């Protein structure tokens, strides 16, 4: 019995029935981390001592027959931009190397209340800025399907660790595609929830109006189970919202018969690779076979998504990241001789180039003289983008599209050309701008046997419908392979 091959719900079932001791699950997953992570670099840190301590407590309660949550005892890994009390939270930046938060994010509290066990903090693009996980101060991450390729980003570690069976489940964050795109590149399932459905309290902000924490897992059911645990209004987050409680069993009970699914034709136009387009069209046929009505429709506003996104995201980022100044926490330049130096040298030395670039861009769009023509214009575009989605949802229950124009890129391919990297976000950023939920699920492989993902986009707070569709699709298809299955074992 290879514990690490199990889904989180399978593992939880066996822990609940005492077929598997939590300690054994921890041993198994840490063994895989020790075995593979030198290669993949998914983790920035692991927290074994508290994890094993926690395992003892939870095991005792399970042994005592106390009723507990659906994922009780399951190890979970968390992207390193989510604050964990007393456990280093670095945002993959030199700036926050050794930073130990004095509080935990609300999602961490919720997972703890659900008796899940935090096992480690996952590598990512620095401050979640990037689509390749190559901008981490702690080194790039390798795609478990092909070590020469990137796992996507910014939640690269969160997706790759699940793919490489170094984690059962993980939490990522998605500002412009940072959960969905690495899931697509790594062949795993991930949900970017509706803005306001998961508390952002304790998520180190990149772009506050776009950031959402979401689950990454081997399949839709695991994703749904974890989403149920972390979602819900949080009094500490003023932008979190009241909505009917999400219940994951509804996901596995649904059907998509008669559901109307729209594909924005502009998502299949210029720039998309043939393999990805074919996979989406195959998925369309599969969904039709399953009883859905799928059609294409025009959504011309797609071309304005990237400009609007980068303006809004960078503007907020430049403000959010101004607090890293070498005074209260984090990196402080040893070369600083006066106050001005403390700011400039600490920031110049402590932050990476991609972060600096976005901060510079953010400063530009907010500076006097440019605010109206850039920032304000982007907020008007945001309104129109959201409106186009709302219009589409008067006709469709779900929207379908590719997650990324290509499969996983070779390492180094986009680092030298930031614009090219930004353009890769074309299908994902709009969903953040509109605040909508979207799930990324594997839907095929390209000619190099690299996974391809599709996203199902839903109405606000209607995660249930898109997860139902994704679940039905996953049951009917065979794309849930792990790289181990394809290559006869992980290297």
């Amino acid at each position, binding site marked *: 019995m290879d514990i690490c091959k199990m889904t989180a719900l399978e593992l939880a079932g066996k822990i609940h029935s005492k077929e598997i001791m939590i300690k054994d699950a921890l041993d198994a997953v840490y063994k895989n981390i020790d075995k593979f992570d030198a290669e993949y670099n998914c983790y920035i840190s692991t927290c074994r001592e508290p994890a094993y301590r926690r395992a003892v407590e939870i095991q005792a309660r399970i042994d005592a027959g106390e009723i507990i949550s659906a994922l009780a005892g399951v190890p979970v890994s968390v992207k390193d931009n989510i604050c964990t009390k007393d456990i280093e939270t670095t945002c993959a930046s030199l700036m926050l190397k050794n930073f130990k*938060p*004095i509080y935990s994010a609300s999602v961490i509290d919720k997972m703890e209340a659900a008796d899940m066990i935090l096992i480690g903090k996952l590598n990512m693009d620095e401050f979640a800025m990037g689509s390749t996980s190559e901008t981490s101060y702690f080194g790039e991450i390798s795609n478990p399907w092909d070590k020469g390729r990137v796992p996507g980003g910014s939640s690269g570690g969160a997706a790759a660790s699940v793919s490489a069976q170094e984690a059962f489940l993980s939490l990522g964050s998605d500002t412009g595609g940072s959960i969905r795109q690495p899931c697509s590149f790594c062949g795993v399932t991930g949900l970017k929830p509706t803005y306001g459905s998961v508390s952002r309290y304790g998520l180190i*902000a990149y772009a506050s109006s776009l950031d959402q924490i979401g689950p990454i897992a081997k399949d839709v059911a695991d994703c749904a189970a974890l989403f149920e645990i972390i979602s819900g209004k949080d009094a500490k987050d*003023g932008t979190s919202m009241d909505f009917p409680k999400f219940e994951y069993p509804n996901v596995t009970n649904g059907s998509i018969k008669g559901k109307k699914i729209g594909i924005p034709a502009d998502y299949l136009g210029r720039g998309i690779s043939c393999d990805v387009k074919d996979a989406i069209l195959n998925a369309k046929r599969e969904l039709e076979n399953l009883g859905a009505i799928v059609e294409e429709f025009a959504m011309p506003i797609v071309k304005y998504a990237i400009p609007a996104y980068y303006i809004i995201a960078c503007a*907020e980022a430049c403000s959010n990241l101004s*607090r890293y100044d070498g005074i209260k926490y984090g990196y402080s330049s040893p070369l600083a001789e006066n106050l*001005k130096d403390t700011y400039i040298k600490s920031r110049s030395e402590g932050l990476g180039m991609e972060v600096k670039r976005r901060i510079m861009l953010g400063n530009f769009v*907010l500076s006097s003289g440019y605010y109206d023509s850039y920032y304000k214009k982007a907020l008007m575009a945001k309104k129109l983008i959201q409106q186009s989605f709302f219009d589409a949802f008067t006709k469709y229950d779900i929207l379908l599209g590719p997650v990324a124009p290509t499969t996983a890129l070779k390492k180094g391919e986009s680092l030298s050309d930031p614009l090219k990297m930004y353009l890769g976000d074309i299908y994902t950023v709009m969903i953040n701008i509109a605040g909508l939920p979207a799930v990324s699920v594997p839907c095929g492989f390209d000619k190099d046997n690299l996974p391809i993902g599709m996203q199902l986009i839903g109405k606000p707070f209607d995660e249930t419908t898109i997860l139902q569709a994704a679940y039905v699709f996953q049951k009917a298809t065979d794309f849930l392979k792990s790289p181990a299955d394809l290559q006869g074992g992980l290297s």
Partner: protein
Amino acid sequence: MNYEITIGLEVHTELSTKSKIFCNCTTLFGGEPNTHVCEICSGMPGTLPLLNQTVVEYAVKTGLATNCSITRYNKFDRKNYFYPDLPKAYQISQLYLPVCRNGYVEIDSDAGKKKVRIHEIHMEEDAGKLIHDPWEDCTLVDYNRCGVPLLEIVSEPDMSSAQEVIDYLEKLRAILQYTGVSDCKMQEGSLRADINLSVRPAGQKELGTRTEMKNMNSFKAITRAIESESKRQIELLEEGKEVVQQTRRWDDNKGTSYSMRSKEDAHDYKYFPEPDLPPIEISDAQIDEIKSSMPELPQNKKLRYISEFGLPQYDTGIITNSIHLVYLFEETVKICKNPKIAANWIMVELMKLLNDSGTLPENINFNHSSLGKIIVILEQGKITRETAKKVFGEVFYNDVDPDTYIKDNNLSVMTDSLAIRTAIEDVLTQNEKSVNEYKGGKTQAFQYLIGQSMRALKGQAQAQEVTKILKDILG
């Protein structure tokens, strides 16, 4: 040439809420450095602000009391700048849609009543405190004040003298104190003003170039700073030079202002809507509720004191300018039932004690019922006026209870005529010379003898009684 001075103020007032504007840390003044701080007000990564409901209520109260229109849909913006006292490197404030706009405060200037228009009032958070450490020649940062709620009240440039500025500030302070929005303790920084000042030749239409003096927190300093700065600007113009638009710091010890080093660093606040805080909607019902809970405001109180109590305009102005004097006055009237006498005691005796001791009305800390009690005892003729003043002094400094104090010190009026007569006879024996002078027709000598007798009686006998007995003896 004659010059006109134009002054506008930005007043910052710390609100009297229990907790901070975006977290639940206490707003108490003082405390060991960094002990009133949490992850939110210190801007730790990942934290989010949550607006204190009472701050909105206080802002609306202030707006209504200053005749503003309330912005029913208002929101917060970020003002970005780097400074060690600002841990997030942005201040959460309101630029685009401030909570109140277009109000006014009426002041009584030399030229009669005058309206000082309020441009806007917005809510924001205070910054921390920087302490210079002389031992290491470095700066220490204390975040206790970080996140204390502030209202910034921005006036139009409607004032033209230091006196008008003081009148406006006193009026504003009274309003803020009456409504309970702020204690306005200037020495604790809970009321401070930035002064924008320009001068122009009389009759010139457009305003002159203005300078700004920041963070002034005493009326005296404000008066001196305005006088000095307007003089400086006029002198520049007289010499044919130009006033440079700049921020200046007033050094009250030296009595001069100096230009704050113009920052070579770029200066751009990059305001944008605060994404972490949802907008605020204020309903009619809320406004009605706040209106109905509004206390009588200084202007109305003043008019009522004049019409109802028949008090002089000047006295009512002084009393109603301070909520602390109002509290004392109203309590005193309640007990002695005589507003005129109560006002008199406050205007004469209390003012003297405040002046002598350098105490501000807000620091009066005796039982407010004591003054009324003293007046009642005095009016009943149980003590003399001299004794009453003396007892009030004890009340003022030591918060004694008047009844107990009078009893313990045997200060009641002497009613024993025989004892008084005996005491007077002693005085006459010792002042034979004056007695003879009086008998020789020198009437001033009589006054002297009364004084000597009162002294011998320690002021405890009624003056009429003494006069009567004295006349009786001297024939």
